[in-house]
């Protein structure tokens, strides 16, 4: 009996957590914090651009970043 109740409570908690969290509408004028440079995933944009450039130029990784490339390194 206790096990069933515990499972039921656990089930309700998990479902509530799944449904209760998540999406929030962010209006255009509320994006100040999202626009902060600290919010970017990569610390150094130039470094990422450079790394992506030479990695994309390798034949095997061609298109690996979502863009087709001929492997000539001239993109």
């Amino acid at each position: 009996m206790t096990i069933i109740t515990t499972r039921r409570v656990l089930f309700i908690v998990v479902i509530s957590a799944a449904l209760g969290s998540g999406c929030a509408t962010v209006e255009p004028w509320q994006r100040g914090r999202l626009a902060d440079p600290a919010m970017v995933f990569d610390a150094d944009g130039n470094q990422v651009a450079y790394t992506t450039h030479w990695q994309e130029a390798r034949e095997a990784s061609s298109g690996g970043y979502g863009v087709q490339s001929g492997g000539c390194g001239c993109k």
Partner: protein
Amino acid sequence: MHRGQRISFAVTVALVTLASAGSPAASARVAPNVFLQSADGSMVDSSTYRGKVVLVDFWATWCPPCKISFPALDSLYREYQPRGFEVLAVNLDEERRDADLFLAAHPHHLTVLFDPLGASPRAFGVKGMPSSFLIDKAGNIRFTHMGYSGNVDENYRREIAQLLAER
């Protein structure tokens, strides 16, 4: 290019042009009446500007094109102000200090108002930053602009002149 492709290309071009340029409001609607905070803390009722051509611009310091448009709008204000034109630059920064730092570095003549809680952009239906709404003397929104590039300055001039010429 097939005929169907040509048509869809033309439709796409037309839509992109409409979206990027200042577009006449589909059907002129009455500008919402909003209350905004002035620099000295007093509240300003937007309806007090009725009878003038008013450009309401929503901007914030975290938005790069907003910062580019600010001096351009100030220039438009100085050009047309003698003819009854007003610019209400509504700052939407959550932190007033951010706006104050920017304003201190950019001398201006236009009226800057503050709405950190964002009630006024909601009332106007702002869809992107920056957004500006050109309101005629009767209080109707006649033209809207979303985003900013220097290319639209002439559009602003034409629209402002048109609205100023109306009785």
